[in-house]
């Protein structure tokens, strides 16, 4: 079952934790103000005498000062101003805390937003150790991550509520966002800037693994796709390379090297396909290949006319891409 935590109030990382700290100031102070104003309003209604429409207006007040009421109003404005200053100070301090996340030994990922999927390139000083995956990030618990955000077509926005606040992916304006996951788990994120047809189906899962698990995962991702072990899977690979699949997708270790769609080198190891639209099961994969426009109308993946036995072969090949 797909899922994952996505709750501003359930932080699992330093950045989200700092923002929840701010929320714990904002919520009580604002609640206090709301309740105080409502009590004042309620008391005003309760104590003021009732009148009819033709009650003579109290025009004497036009030329009269009302010092007692004036003092109360001034005091209320002063208290409001003071509370706003408190909130401003807490907000600025939270901003500082967010900017001061220690970034030694950080993991670097370049995340590119496309309509409607994410491409993640794990950077490494040694270029041969870089690798690319899609729609799913694995990060080590306790180690800071610096994500470079690139908008490829329109504006998208990176948002994984349990880990960090948003940052937009703006074409022509690359930027970065840093976070650190402090607890292992699956954290769900989703594009937060309206980006067209399938803005709704552009999820990004972040899986925080203990460092050893992460290292094993990364090592596996670096490897090229395994040679298929069955005849059917081999036929599936040949079909993949001969048909239009290879015009958009890449599978390392084969001649498919296009970068217009998610890298499928280790597609079977992911939780979901189609940017979170479907759980990654064999039957979902075949359904997706047959008619992606039914599942995610408007997606750039075309519907293909594939014979059933070819579909089975393709499916077997994809299942081998662990």
């Amino acid at each position, binding site marked *: *079952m*797909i899922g*994952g935590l*996505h709750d*501003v*109030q359930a932080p699992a990382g330093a950045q989200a934790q700092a*923002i929840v700290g*701010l*929320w714990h100031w*904002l919520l009580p102070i*604002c609640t206090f*103000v*709301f309740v105080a104003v*409502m009590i*004042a*309003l309620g*008391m*005003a209604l309760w104590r*003021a005498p009732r009148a009819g*429409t033709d009650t003579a*207006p*109290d*025009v004497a*007040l036009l030329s009269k000062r*009302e010092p007692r*009421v*004036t003092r*109360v*109003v001034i005091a209320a*404005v002063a208290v409001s101003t003071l509370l*706003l200053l408190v*909130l401003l100070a807490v907000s*600025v301090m*939270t901003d500082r805390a967010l900017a001061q996340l220690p970034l030694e030994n950080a993991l670097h990922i370049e995340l590119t937003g496309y309509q409607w999927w994410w491409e993640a390139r794990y950077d490494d000083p040694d270029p041969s150790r870089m690798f690319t995956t899609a729609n799913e990030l694995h990060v080590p618990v306790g180690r800071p991550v610096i994500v470079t955000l690139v908008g490829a*077509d*329109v*504006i998208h*926005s990176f*948002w994984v*509520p349990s880990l*960090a*606040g*948003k*940052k*937009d992916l*703006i074409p*022509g*304006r690359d*930027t970065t966002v840093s976070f650190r996951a402090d607890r292992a788990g699956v954290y769900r994120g*989703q594009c*937060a800037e*309206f*980006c*067209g*047809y*399938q*803005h*709704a189906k552009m999820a990004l899962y972040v899986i925080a693994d203990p460092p050893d698990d992460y290292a094993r995962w990364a090592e596996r991702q670096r490897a090229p796709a395994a040679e298929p072990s069955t005849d059917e899977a081999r036929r599936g690979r040949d079909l993949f390379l001969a048909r239009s699949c290879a015009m958009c997708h890449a599978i390392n270790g084969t001649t498919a090297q296009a970068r217009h769609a998610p890298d499928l080198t280790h597609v079977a190891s992911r939780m979901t396909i189609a940017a979170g639209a479907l759980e990654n099961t064999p039957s979902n994969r075949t359904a997706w290949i047959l008619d992606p426009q039914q599942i995610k*109308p*408007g997606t750039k993946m075309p519907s293909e006319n594939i014979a059933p036995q070819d579909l089975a072969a393709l499916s077997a090949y994809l299942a081998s891409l662990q």
Partner: protein
Amino acid sequence: MSAGSGSLSGLGSAASPQVLRERARVIVGRGETMLDGAGWGSQAERALHEAWRDEPGLLGFLKTTDHKRIGRRFVVTSFAFFVAAGILAAVMRMQLALPDNHVVGPDLYNQIFTMHGTTMMFIFAVPIMQGMAVYLVPLLVGTRNTAFPRMTACAYWLFLFGALSLWTGFAINAGADAGWFAYVPLAGPQYGVGKREDIWNNLINLSEAMGLMVAVDLATVILKMRAPGMSLRRMPIFVWASLVTSMMIIFAMPSVMLAANLAQFDRTFGTHFFNPAEGGDVLIWQHLFWFFGHPEVYFIFLPGLAFVSSIIPTFARRPMFGHDAVVLSLIATGFLSFGLWVHHMFATNLPEVGKGFFTAMSLLIAIPTAVQIFCWIATLWTGRIDLRTPLLFVLGFFVILVLGGLTGIMVGSVPFDLQVHDSYFVVAHLHYVLLGGAVFPLFGAFFYWFPKFTGRMLDERLGRWQFWLFFVGFNVAFFPMHLLGLAGMPRRIYTYGAETGWGTLNLIATIGAGVIALSVLLFIVNVVRSGFNGARAGDNPWHASSLEWATHSPPPAFNFVVLPVVASREPLWTREADEPTHVSGLSAQTREGLVTTVLDALPDVRYSYPEPSIWPFIAAITVVGWLFWSNMTETGMFYGLIPPAIAFVAWYWPTRKETVEQLLLERKP
């Protein structure tokens, strides 16, 4: 100027009546030239009726320059679009009621939420507030029409055609689909294919032209045509709010018009203002849009505050506590609202230190609103309360606006906004602020001024039902959205999976939306029923203090049979026997008004209003034609300008009748 028996008479040294009459007979051929100042039932009143009458039939309908007819049209038209956009909201709520729902698909959903936002902001909220002001301001300042009535007439037609073209586009599957904010590149030539965004850009041009024209007109009336004696210190708060709003519109709207035209140049001519690949910058759009977009929130909100400030003193039976503080707060809000726009862009890569400034500004703007809220509570506290439906809506406004304002303080903080920006938390916040701050007071205002508009009272019992349904439905619909936002639900998604856990709260919100729909339906029933059968209102059913209540309900075409003179802030509550009550000496046979000085409203010069004309209507058609022609072909951008040029020349072409009349009425000092 001399104060005669109860009147200020004689503007300039008049020629002797005999000479005037003679000249009138010769030149105009209307018999006697008559001066106003004689009160209801006089011969002057009949002359005024004759001078201000619109010709009957369709032609009169199209030519009218009566600010009340135009204001009413604005209100009725934009309310119709409010209902239409509300129906779209109901469709969205039905789609989102359940996970993986299939009421509408992504393409239609994206059009629907774009149409909902665009309609509510550009076709409902701004025009209805301006329409209320067009109707009320000339009455509140005691004059006979707006300063440039033909321009206001033209503004209405531009607005109507713009709105209709947007909705026609939607009906033929060419509805704008890039959001009411139309961020590039999604709305640009590469990703916003088809004519959808062209139509949206046209609407922006037309509705902002409307806004600017009305704003210039209102600001002029307010500054130059107030009743003698209505110095700035005595100006009603509603008029102050209209002035501040008009000034804000004049400074804010050019920004979004510029942006829409740059975007349209990108689309039509292949310029690269917003194309990063060719040295353009997509963030420029956001700056230009929000430099307008944030003040826009406040020029929807300030009229709402002004309705509240009009209703509370009447139903608390006392003058406003802290009148000056409230006025200064409105002005302060107007200025501060221009320093907030970046808080819509906290998630972009603008410099962090700069964002801190906008947090401070976003918190600061809460103070003038707090001042007003405390002054209203103080007014109620020290008043004697008549709890009628208008006041009920104001009380609902308190609850909802204060809550929305407080969540506004939350989202004004950069770090917190990074979490809830573009989430349902913001959807909740903006509806609390805009419905709480504008629509609740607007319904209060409808109940308050309906007697003036129609001469009949709205039904109180239906009004109470409507209020409670609206209040409860609103909170059921929108409060859960705060929680959805905190639970990670982004805005503008057409569906969500069951695994997200957002289903229950969405279902509750949808139920609330249904209750809101019911309450709006009750209001429409109430308006139709009371419009035909409501109790007769009389001139001043609430015993209120401002000048609109000094004339008949509904007011005659010329508003006041005598132009009032004002000696206090609450003119109808403080009539002293020995003060002059009205001006006399304006022509009753032509459309004449009085221009007064800006600060003290001393009589300055007489002013001849233009006659009704068909040309504002024709000019509006030609402008709309030009815009659509220019969307189709580049050459249309140039040749399409010829018809508007002709129409505008014809508009200003003087008529012999006007020239003769003005010569006749001219006085040498």
